[in-house]
């Protein structure tokens, strides 16, 4: 089935950058209370760019795969560039059709990323 393409399931079962950073510059926690998806995104920033990233949390295959794929993609990118990311940036990464109900799952990591890079609600 399309929603669970092999690559999505692979990222779900073997998420990249899952865990914690030693000394994150930015940390942002967000959740989707309707389905219980949760993500804590940690970013290491150097020279205005993402030097490293890690995430933890739990959620459905779509939200977890989105977080994993997004993490791979943002390393080396500038905060300015990431501030310009939108829904399409994530959907392009996922490469699947996401319906109106599951879109929230897919976009939760992006929501956390945007909040983090815009400096909103930093935990520390």
């Amino acid at each position, binding site marked *: 089935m399309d929603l*669970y393409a092999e690559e999505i399931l692979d990222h779900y079962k073997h998420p990249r950058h899952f865990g914690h950073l030693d000394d994150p510059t930015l940390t942002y926690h967000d959740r989707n209370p309707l*389905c219980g998806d949760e993500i804590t995104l940690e970013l290491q920033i150097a020279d205005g760019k993402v030097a490293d990233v890690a995430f933890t949390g739990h*959620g459905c*295959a779509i939200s977890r795969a989105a977080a994993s794929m997004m993490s791979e993609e943002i390393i080396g990118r500038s905060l300015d560039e990431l501030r310009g990311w939108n829904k399409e940036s994530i959907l392009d990464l996922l490469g699947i059709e996401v319906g109106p109900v599951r879109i929230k799952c897919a976009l939760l990591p992006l929501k956390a990323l945007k909040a983090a890079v815009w400096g909103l609600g930093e935990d520390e």
Partner: protein
Amino acid sequence: MPTATMTQSTSSQSTPLDAEAIRADFPILERRVHGLPLIYLDNAASSQKPRQVIDALTRYYEHSNANVHRGVHTLSEEATAQYEGARAKVASFVGSCCPKEIIWTRNASEAMNLLAQSWGRANLKRGDRVLLTEMEHHSNIVPWQILAAELGFEIAYVRVADDGTLILDDLSKLLAGRTKLVSFTYMSNVVGTINPVKELTRAAHRAGALVHLDACQAVPHMPVNIEELDVDFMSFSGHKMLGPTGIGALWGRRELLNAMPPWMGGGDMIREVHLTGFKPSELPWKFEAGTPAIAQAIGLGAAVDYLEQVGMAAIHQAERELTAYAMQRLPEVEGLRILGPAADKRGGLVAFTLGDAHPHDIAAVLDNLGIAIRAGHHCAQPLHERYCIPASARASFYLYNTKEEVDLLVKALHKVVEMFTF
């Protein structure tokens, strides 16, 4: 395959349902989803509609459509007669002596908001207590929380045991003091538990409290009689009992309803209006401001006719057997954990978790196989917090579901395990 839990004695000698004949009445059951026959197991969220209900809506719009209680023309008189006729059917269906005890609302949530905003506002104050349970639907929690924030009364909760039943050991303590209302669900929409309504109601009344029963999951599925249950208020919704969306009801004892102030103002709820003030209409219209959901009420009347023709005892019995069968088969699926009590203590639904698979993923895979179930917290987040899970998957049954559909559900869940096991 019969099991010990299937031999219930709660229903009288009801004849078994003719599933094939019933299914033929529901046009939607002919459709295919993702190329496969629809297996609809989300009845606790909303039921499907038989041809008889759909026809009643069409007939009303094609022949009698007009506003009610106003015109003296033929159409308005027909519409009024059908609309009030539906009220009488629903009243009799739940064992009420008089139609005016049925207040139409948009849904059960609105019924509970009506109760909170009208009865609650007039009767609750600081130092009082409203007793709910941990297994309530949000619609029986939030209206009280909204009002409590304003009026300062206390909300207490009967807790839920691991097996999904209410912990009633300290009920007298919870009822002590100024408990004015006990408001609880007849049947949990998550764990399926059928609560001991009579026992709770007796205890509440002894303590001087009134009882409101959320009967959303009960009225569609089993014989419900308010006189027998002895409750004071009861809410239920039409769309879960084969009726249209947009119609629900609050039933109340008429002396209580008579003493309650109106809650929404507008057309139809007044006897007279002057620049200096108004006098409210009598029951039931006192609580029904504005043009009501006329077609929907008439459709609900047709749904009640249908349910009565099939027989509520027979429906209840068939659902119990199907649920017992599902509870016997579902544990075959690796990692599947059923929430809630044994089959003999529950109604026709089974909520479960499945290993590490997220309920949304379970539901999405099942959908691709034509099977509709619910995933999420089912508007009962506190109960999920109680079980320390963010969400669950739920299959809920109705009179048109079959054992073959349960078999296909089990088969599909094996596929989920295959896909999502690490």
